[in-house]
């Protein structure tokens, strides 16, 4: 057992309101530079939609990630042979038009134009050439299902949905969508690292952050192709690839990454997971249907004495083990089994997990007598004097899953490598928590029914309360459990901090010798 620690994330999609604050926070700090204007290390997509870059999930086009064939797992579009023979021209490299051509407006024209009969306008100009352009595409062009014929309907996740199912999804009365915020997944089996001919990309052992060494990158641009999530970007000006750094300078200082810190919906959780690096290879080689189980299986229980011992043997700091025990990610992913990795079938073992969105699809509206329920409500709360119930507690509760507005298959394509049961399981849990909390706060659902629902979802009342707390009430420290970076050790790379009498002084890494 080779225990390593990984800072990983959970995004609770039910809570995402699609405000793009995370994207702006990230952009302001990291990518507001020449050559990086088009990059969104953090971006929020509307699903169904084609995303950014357009149709990034379609590996028939982009050839990213790993593929299993004949029992062997190989990089799909890159790798040693393809990477080196395609080094002069990478046939699978996305070009800037797949993202969008960055632009600004000539605002000064509004002020400086000479007097005339027409209103002066601020024409759009390209940030690459500086010349006026016709804007064809911009960030979040398809936000909130705009341009659905071009975007939503071309979503690669619709691939094995019948034409009928697709038609239902895009009927005006039944349309539904949700947001998918994406950052680098800081994978355990990163395709970008494996594809880099220069060896410029590496994973940090201490916290699992995947980084590109800007001094070693030579613009062979294989990582852009290799990353199935298209989260490695090519800076066209400096000739270097760049990617999300999980705000490691902030993490080392004990701060949450900018995107997470600024999250308005508080959908983001960050914490340590301990995992067994020896079993990565076998997890990667699992069949599609066992991939997620295999992935979650190598994540270790931080309370297990054996795991703690092995972690210490592998040099994991006590403080990191402690953080792992309080990790909200561990709770969501392992204890409650509520979160799933995005597109596990790409086989990179992404360490960013998503709680599937529970769309308002399973409730019925019926006539009931609400007088009793109304009495139990807080007097300050609005009195509920009408006699209908947005009922989520019928005996046919799970039966309605078949009538959902969002085809299960769609979410399964996105989050569970096609396994619909897995999504159903998460939805049941999310519903059970709601029913349980409704019993506690409103009281119009019987204890027996609640128990039955919880049992069917595989939860206990304590777990449901825990999920409720972390989902709805969690404070900053609950959502972000950041292990100390041990800067005191980092500084030892520059200075030996144990300087004593007789030493020459600070600033020397090696023994100081008199010159010849």
């Amino acid at each position: 057992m080779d225990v390593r620690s990984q800072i990983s994330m959970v995004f609770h999609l039910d809570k995402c309101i699609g405000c793009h604050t995370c994207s702006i926070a990230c952009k302001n700090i990291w990518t507001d530079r020449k050559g990086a204007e088009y990059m969104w290390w953090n971006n929020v997509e509307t699903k169904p939609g084609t995303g950014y870059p357009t149709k990034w999930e379609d590996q028939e086009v982009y050839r990213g990630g790993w593929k299993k064939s004949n029992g062997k797992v190989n990089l799909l579009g890159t790798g040693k042979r393809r990477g080196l023979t395609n080094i002069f021209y990478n046939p699978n490299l996305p070009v800037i038009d797949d993202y969008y051509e960055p632009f600004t407006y000539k605002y000064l024209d509004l002020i400086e134009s000479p007097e005339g009969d027409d209103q002066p306008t601020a024409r759009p100009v390209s940030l690459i050439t500086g010349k006026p352009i016709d804007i064809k595409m911009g960030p979040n062009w398809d936000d909130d299902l705009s341009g659905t014929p071009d975007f939503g309907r071309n979503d690669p996740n619709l691939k094995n949905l019948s034409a009928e199912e697709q038609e239902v999804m895009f009927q005006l009365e039944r349309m539904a969508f949700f947001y998918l915020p994406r950052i680098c997944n800081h994978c355990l089996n990163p395709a970008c690292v494996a594809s880099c001919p220069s060896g410029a990309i590496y994973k940090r052992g201490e916290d699992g952050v995947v980084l590109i060494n800007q001094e070693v990158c030579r613009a062979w641009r294989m990582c852009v192709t290799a990353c199935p999530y298209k989260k490695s970007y090519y800076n066209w000006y400096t000739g270097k690839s760049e990617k999300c750094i999980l705000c490691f300078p902030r993490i080392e200082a004990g701060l949450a990454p900018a995107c997470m810190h600024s999250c308005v919906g508080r959908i983001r959780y960050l914490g340590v997971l301990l995992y067994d690096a020896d079993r990565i290879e076998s997890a990667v080689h699992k069949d599609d249907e066992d991939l997620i189980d295999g992935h979650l299986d190598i994540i270790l229980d931080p309370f297990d004495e054996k795991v703690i011992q092995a972690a210490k043997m592998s040099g994991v700091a006590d403080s990191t083990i402690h953080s792992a025990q309080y990790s909200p990610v561990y709770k969501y992913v392992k204890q409650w089994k509520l979160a799933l990795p995005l597109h596990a079938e790409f086989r990179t073992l992404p360490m960013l997990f998503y709680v599937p969105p529970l769309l308002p699809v399973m409730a019925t509206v019926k006539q009931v007598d609400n007088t009793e329920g109304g009495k139990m409500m807080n007097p300050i709360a609005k009195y509920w004097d009408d006699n209908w119930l947005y009922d989520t507690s019928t005996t046919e509760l799970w039966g309605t899953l078949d009538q959902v507005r969002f085809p299960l298959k769609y979410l399964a394509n996105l989050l569970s490598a096609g396994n619909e049961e897995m999504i159903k399981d998460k939805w049941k849990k999310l519903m059970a928590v709601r029913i349980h909390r409704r019993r506690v706060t409103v009281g119009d659902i019987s204890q027996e029914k609640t128990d039955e629902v919880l049992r069917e979802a595989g939860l206990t009342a304590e777990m449901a309360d825990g999920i409720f707390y972390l989902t709805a009430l969690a404070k900053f420290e609950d959502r972000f459990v950041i292990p100390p970076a041990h800067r005191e050790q980092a500084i030892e790379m520059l200075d030996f901090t144990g300087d004593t009498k007789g030493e020459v002084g600070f600033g020397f890494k090696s023994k100081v010798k008199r010159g010849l």
Partner: protein
Amino acid sequence: MDYLNNFFLIALPYLALAIFLIGTIFRYTSRKFQFSSLSSQFLEGRKLFYGSVPFHWGVIFVFFGHLIAFLFPGSVLAWNSQPLRLMILEITAFIFGISMLVGLINLVIRRYTTARLSPVTNKMDLIVYVLLIIQTVAGLWIAYNFRWGSSWFSTLLTPYLYSIFTFNPDITAVSLLPWPVKLHIAGAFVILSIFPFTRLVHMLVLPLNYLWRPYQQVTWYWNRKKVRSSSTPWSLQRPENT
């Protein structure tokens, strides 16, 4: 004439080699961020194929052809002892030369007709293009007009280059060669002298290491197996990661 010969065939090579060595080492050690192939495929990904691919494969074969003739002149002469094999060698080399020229022309056209590429084009790119085109055309001209290059290279130019590299320059034979050949020799050294100041440096960092390194790379600041071991307590040297 002697002055010119001495300058272009003795002084220039040594000057070029000195600039190449010092400049490259300086740039690699202190301007590492600038060491990049500066690919522009991201801005224009279609026309590049018809330029980059024929040029690069052409230049690789032509370059190694020259290198083999320099390092193993005997084997080239032995190969050329049969006319059929000589023809195969010469025609193959010529085809790669043509491929290089076609690629170059496509690259030049692409770079100066695509608006998006102007912000990533600098003066050194133009100089490199001009020099490479002159060099390629001269090479093809020589191969066509002064046959058979592979044979007389091994008998005339290999000793000359050898004399340069052993610091005992001997140009008696070379100075009698026709001017296109001299142009080709001088051109090579001029390219060598501007080499460190152009994007050509990317050929020095060709990632052959990729062939034998493991796919995944994980790094630690400290030797993680030792950093917490009780057998290596607080000491003057922390267990560093190798």
